[in-house]
């Protein structure tokens, strides 16, 4: 039973991962990525990590991929145009390199995997109570730092994606921006916020 579930979802995730990297339309790539993430969430449950699986669905598919879709919608990005600068050589080199890489990495992991029979899942390993205890004692400092990182990321994303306000530095249209104007624009950027 477990093997059947694993094989089904592993095959689904590999198939849709190929769609993600091969489909010329970015919206369809993103939707395939949703399927991949759901399949991986199932595998996470099989590995005895239901909390991480829930986070995967909530954070990845619920937040990150929705952000991707929003940006695709905002920028109105369509199909990748194959007309210019198609480089079949690059594609083949990447494919061959990745095949070697997958073979090597897979073999390495196959040989270092340890015992074939795993210990049964213990209630201790599955316990979210213990996990959160661990998170808020041993890993408290990294936890707080990650919170800070997210705050900085939100502020930075807002600052970068915002439309330029009047009086702020405007994008250089043609040729180089004169140094004086650039300096003035940078100053104006401070108080326009």
């Amino acid at each position: 039973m477990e093997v059947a579930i694993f094989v089904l979802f592993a095959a689904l995730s590999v198939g849709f991962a190929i769609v993600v990297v091969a489909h010329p339309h970015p919206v369809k790539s993103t939707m395939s990525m949703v399927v991949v993430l759901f399949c991986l969430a199932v595998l996470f449950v099989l590995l005895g990590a239901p909390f991480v699986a829930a986070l995967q669905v909530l954070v990845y598919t619920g937040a990150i991929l929705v952000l991707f879709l929003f940006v695709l919608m905002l920028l109105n990005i369509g199909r990748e145009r194959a007309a210019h600068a198609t480089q079949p050589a690059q594609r083949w080199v990447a494919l061959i390199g990745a095949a070697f890489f997958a073979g090597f990495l897979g073999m390495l992991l196959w040989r270092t995997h340890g015992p074939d029979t795993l210990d049964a899942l213990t209630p201790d390993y599955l316990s979210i109570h213990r996990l959160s205890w661990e998170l808020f004692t041993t890993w408290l400092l990294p936890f707080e730092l990650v919170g800070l990182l997210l705050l900085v990321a939100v502020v930075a994303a807002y600052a970068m994606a915002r439309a330029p306000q009047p009086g702020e530095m405007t994008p250089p249209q043609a040729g180089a921006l004169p140094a004086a104007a650039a300096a003035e624009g940078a100053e104006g950027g401070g108080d326009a916020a």
Partner: protein
Amino acid sequence: MTVPIAWYMVLAAVLFSIGTVGALTRRNGITIFLSIELMLNAVNLLILSYARLLGDQAGQVIVFFVLAVAAAEAAIGLALFIAVYRLRRTIDVNRLNLLRW
């Protein structure tokens, strides 16, 4: 019968390689980003399978942190793409060659 843990590891290697191909061959910036997310997820799967193998919950905590950092990375990266698009009207990485020569 339980699934041998090596299967999960090989699956992680395969997904990581697919992500590598995508990051190397695609020209649309957002699809490159999706490929990088795919690689991050493959690594998450690997961390969780090692955590399962060793019976140590610390692996789950680390995956939690990887998820949080991936969220921050996606927010920053997509904001960068919006800013680049505003300047250049494209996010085709082959045409973003201002700093190339």
